[in-house]
């Protein structure tokens, strides 16, 4: 009886203590991944607007087809440019290290490196659909109250992510995830040389494909101090995507209805 009582008392004391502990860093990142990424193949329309010195300059509209690879758990993406007219029909395939750019005017597919992937507008998709928990080892730095893109205070876990596989596009990521909701609020993305490349703010959470997901990501270019890009996701819907689509020979075949 006494042992039972002591055990009950210990449990009563320990449970609140356990509840007060934050989840494991890797679990936080995995939960944040699920917030950004639907658990099914999908397509969406992505509008990128580049602001130079605060003024909107370039607008690019992309249709993105995305599917999680069963082996790597990373998203394979097919990106097709639909606007402006000079870029219409250009395609980018991102399937692990198998990445190709297709230009309908030259009818040629050119293989691109991860570094080239970071150059084009389609590259900013990395900060949206990457499954970070798979390719990075996360460490919890602390808990902070951070302003989101709408200058609302958010209580966040501050995490430091180090690349743990060859598939990782960035060498290091600083990541702020809101406590409770597991909504990503902010990310800072670094190159191999330790250079800060871009800062991403995730906001405008709306219901999309069965979950609350950020409909807009603001990307502040850390290299070009005048450049800010917004990525707006709309028309997100389930899409049956055969694996055969994710190869270069399919690029000229992709139809966007």
């Amino acid at each position: 009886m006494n042992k039972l009582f002591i055990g009950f008392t210990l449990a009563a004391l320990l449970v609140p203590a356990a509840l007060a502990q934050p989840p494991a860093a890797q679990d936080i990142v995995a939960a944040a991944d699920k917030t950004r990424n639907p658990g099914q193949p999908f397509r969406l329309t992505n509008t990128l607007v580049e602001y130079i010195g605060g003024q909107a300059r370039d607008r690019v509209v992309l249709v993105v087809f995305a599917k999680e690879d069963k082996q790597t758990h990373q998203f394979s993406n097919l990106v097709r440019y639909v606007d402006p007219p000079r870029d219409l029909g250009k395609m980018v395939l991102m399937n692990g290290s198998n990445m190709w750019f297709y230009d309908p005017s030259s009818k040629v597919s050119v293989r691109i490196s991860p570094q080239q992937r970071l150059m084009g507008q389609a590259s900013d998709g990395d900060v949206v659909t990457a499954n970070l928990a798979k390719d990075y080892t996360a460490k919890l730095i602390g808990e902070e109250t951070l302003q989101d893109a709408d200058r609302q205070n958010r209580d966040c876990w501050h995490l430091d992510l180090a690349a743990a596989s060859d598939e990782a596009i960035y060498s290091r990521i600083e990541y702020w995830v809101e406590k409770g909701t597991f909504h990503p609020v902010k990310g800072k993305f670094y190159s191999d040389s330790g250079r800060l490349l871009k800062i991403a703010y995730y906001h405008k959470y709306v219901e999309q494909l069965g979950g609350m997901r950020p409909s807009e990501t603001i990307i502040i270019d850390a290299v070009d101090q005048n450049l800010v890009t917004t990525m707006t996701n709309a028309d997100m819907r389930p899409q049956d995507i055969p694996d055969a689509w994710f190869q270069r020979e399919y690029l000229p075949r992709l139809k966007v209805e």
Partner: protein
Amino acid sequence: MRTAVAFCFVLCAAMPADAQENGDLDRIPQAVQNEPAEPAAPQSNAHGTYYAEDDFALSSARGDLAVAVPPPTSSDWSNRTSLDAFDQWTLSERLSFTFSDRFSLTEADGIGFPAEASRNALREAYFTWEPVTQTFVEFGRINLKNGIALGFNPTDFFKANTAVSQASADPSTLRSDRLGTLMLRMQTIWDGGSATFVYAPKIHTPRQIVGADPGWIDPSFDQTNTTDRFMLALNLEVADFSPQALIYHESGRTKAGLNLSYPIGQSVIAYGEWAGGNAPDLIAEAIAFGKATGTLPAVAPVVPPTSASRAFQNDLAVGASWTSEKKITLNLEYHFHQAGFTGADWRGWFDVGGANPALAPELWYVRGYASAQQQPMSRHQIFLRADWQDAFVTDLELSGIAFVNLTDGSGMMQVAANYNLSDAWSLGAYAGGTFGGRRSEWGSLPNASSAIFQVVRYF
């Protein structure tokens, strides 16, 4: 003291992240803050690309050539206005039609208006039928391109006699605008690979590569469909190499080909492209073609002297691309064209031309033939390409190319600047030239330098 430290710790823990961490919020434009909370998908009904382009060119000629160029002398200026269209229409769930065309009007000294000034290039016009999911049957004029390299594509078996006038000498641009070939193409794609079969019929005898004067709307099948041709290609996604194996056959000539590429680290793509088969060398092939099309008399001698026998000829392009964090991409390639000129062939070319000027037209014909075939003239060359996106300012692209003959050190280079003024307008400027000794491949050409100014309006 401990209490004070503890108080400070609690206070700090409860404070927002330091102001520095949110300092970047000030860089978010006000216009972004004012956007609606839930944006709608943008509407875009465009399915084709239409644009008008004007290219104004100036060029300077080289004097005192080692081998004189036969007349007519080319104009030292030109202006070309082009209308360009590429579109695709979905006719039913499994049937579509693709159309690609360019009409150009050229003004220059010595070009008669309108007969010689007007040219229409029907690049593509073909139907695509998908009878079974991921299996495609296509028929019509199709621009089929193979090859992973940039400067020379040994496996690009359908490139001969397809070039259309272009502002830039960059091979990437030249491949963008050329005539397709009338063909039947069948392709099936599965998870991890694809197979393609092509049959291109002979429907015309070949046109002369110099002196021909087709009508402005001539579809030029006498350039693209002058022999029966077959090709089989197999693509596989294997161990990151993305291999493509090809077999190509045309009247009495069979070639095999292979394309490979492989990523190295974050910034490098290494690639290689090979094709090989029995064929005569460039000189023998050019002279034979000239005689067959009536450009050269049947009794014309083979100059410079060469063997008329066929042998296994290898073509190879190996190289790598490297991309920096500052959006600069460099390509370096080595090209081996076994049928091309050796050092001895070049010496023979200059010796014959110097000793017997009457043979100059035939000597230049050989070089014109290689150009029409889009083959390197020489056996060994290197190719360099540099491209810098968003150079200094957003939407400015600076690029440069160079070909260098490894035997005589001569070469050609071009630098280009392209700037997107808006979604509708683009500006371009190109400057290029050739360098080398008087008895070298590039230093013997009549064109010393050129500059081109380009305006493009997209619709």
